[in-house]
């Protein structure tokens, strides 16, 4: 049976993990490559690097991080942040990324989704959607970390990115993000039921039951989380054990 995926996310700027981690065995918890290797050893199902650097120099650093990570981690690697054109995608994919995440650039120029899917295949294109509740059963999409409303309905936008050839949707609830009160289940279910591609739920994970809830009730195909793993609250292996006890299919760890 297809496993539900557990995906740790590392925010990176100028070649450093932003919030840091406190993995016990790392020499340098701010080094994204070391963090990625640690998650690879925990048997995470995939990894996401989110490059929050604005400068061009910073992106060259990110390409190097991806290149070094790909030599050690043999699980799918997604890189998002600052990808504005097909050439940016190609650069990350050639460095060893398997998928690229696009968000603002796709909203400004939706044709980028079609171009990326045509050039590299839909499986390479992950559309990130930041959504914020605007009323009962209604969410809008935002850019700039949730500050700038785009006046577009989140579920309608999800359908559009699906129709344009995105391979996956990385859905972040701006309301839940950072609260540790749980994912936005209603939003996740609304998007997941509207599209025929996998939906990765993001934002709000405070404990393992939150992940179970969004996978079961929110119909998510994968869960993304950062702090719950970064600060040693849980390992990926613990999450898998917790899921398996609740009959959620997971990729078994080798232990």
């Amino acid at each position: 049976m297809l496993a539900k995926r557990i995906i740790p996310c590392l925010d990176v700027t100028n070649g450093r993990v932003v919030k840091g981690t406190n993995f016990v065995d790392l020499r340098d918890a701010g080094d994204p490559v070391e963090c990625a290797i640690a998650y690879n050893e925990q048997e995470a199902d995939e990894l996401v690097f989110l490059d929050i650097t604005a400068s061009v120099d910073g992106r060259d650093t990110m390409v190097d991080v991806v290149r070094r990570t790909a030599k050690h981690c043999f699980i799918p690697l997604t890189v998002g942040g600052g990808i504005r054109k097909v050439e940016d995608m190609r650069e990350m994919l050639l460095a060893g990324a398997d998928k690229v995440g696009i968000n603002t650039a796709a909203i400004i120029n939706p044709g980028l989704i079609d171009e990326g899917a045509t050039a590299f295949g839909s499986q390479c294109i992950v559309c990130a959607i930041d959504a914020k509740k605007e009323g009962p059963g209604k969410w809008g999409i935002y850019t700039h970390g949730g500050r700038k409303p785009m006046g577009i309905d989140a579920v309608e936008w999800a359908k559009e990115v699906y129709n344009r050839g995105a391979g996956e949707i990385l859905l972040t609830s701006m309301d839940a993000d950072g609260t540790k009160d749980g994912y936005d289940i209603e939003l996740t279910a609304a998007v997941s039921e509207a599209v025929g591609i996998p939906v990765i739920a993001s934002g709000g994970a405070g404990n393992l039951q939150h992940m179970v809830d969004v996978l079961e009730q929110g119909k998510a195909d994968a869960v993304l989380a950062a702090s719950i793993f970064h600060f040693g609250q849980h390992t990926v292996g613990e999450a898998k054990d917790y899921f398996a006890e609740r009959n959620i299919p997971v990729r078994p760890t080798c232990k």
Partner: protein
Amino acid sequence: MKVGIIDYGAGNLQSVLNAFHALGAEANLITTPAELADLTHLVLPGQGEFGDCSRKLEASGMTQPIKDWITADKPFLGICVGYQLLFEGSEESPTSKGLGIFKGQNVKFTDEAGLKVPHMGWNGVTPQNPNLSMWNGMSDEPYFYYVHSYFPQAEEADVVACVTTYGNQTFHGAVTRGNLIATQFHPEKSQHAGLQLLKNFLAL
């Protein structure tokens, strides 16, 4: 041991190269038939649309050399579309031809309520013959990473190496014959199980 990964412009090959390097193998991308001469192991990867890959492979001049290599039963590994291309054709591009090494066509997952296509993520495989050397060192139901919407239906039952179930559909996840292994899943992205399979391929 010298591994050649055929670079015919279809997909990103860095992961495949990295995985063989991690196993300590000498591996390089190859673009011309002449480079086959000093290889011991040949890999045909592939990503994207069947017809597009078929045309690019034909244009690379590698079609006949690959057939000759397989006929000579030298170690060969097909991955993803590189697996699908070993069959006769595909629903995805009815006018394009496969290599016809195996009898059968590639078909798309049938619509099912709630079933998302592509089939993307980690899924378990059930080996049809656990004694095959390609399964050495693995659990009874190893998990591999899949990303695909189409899959081949092998007509010769004895070549099927494993099956995988997605929704209510069970498909052929890999085939093998002699020193040929071909997989719909991506061993280069399947961590322990994937690297073990590549190691078993290198042992051929």
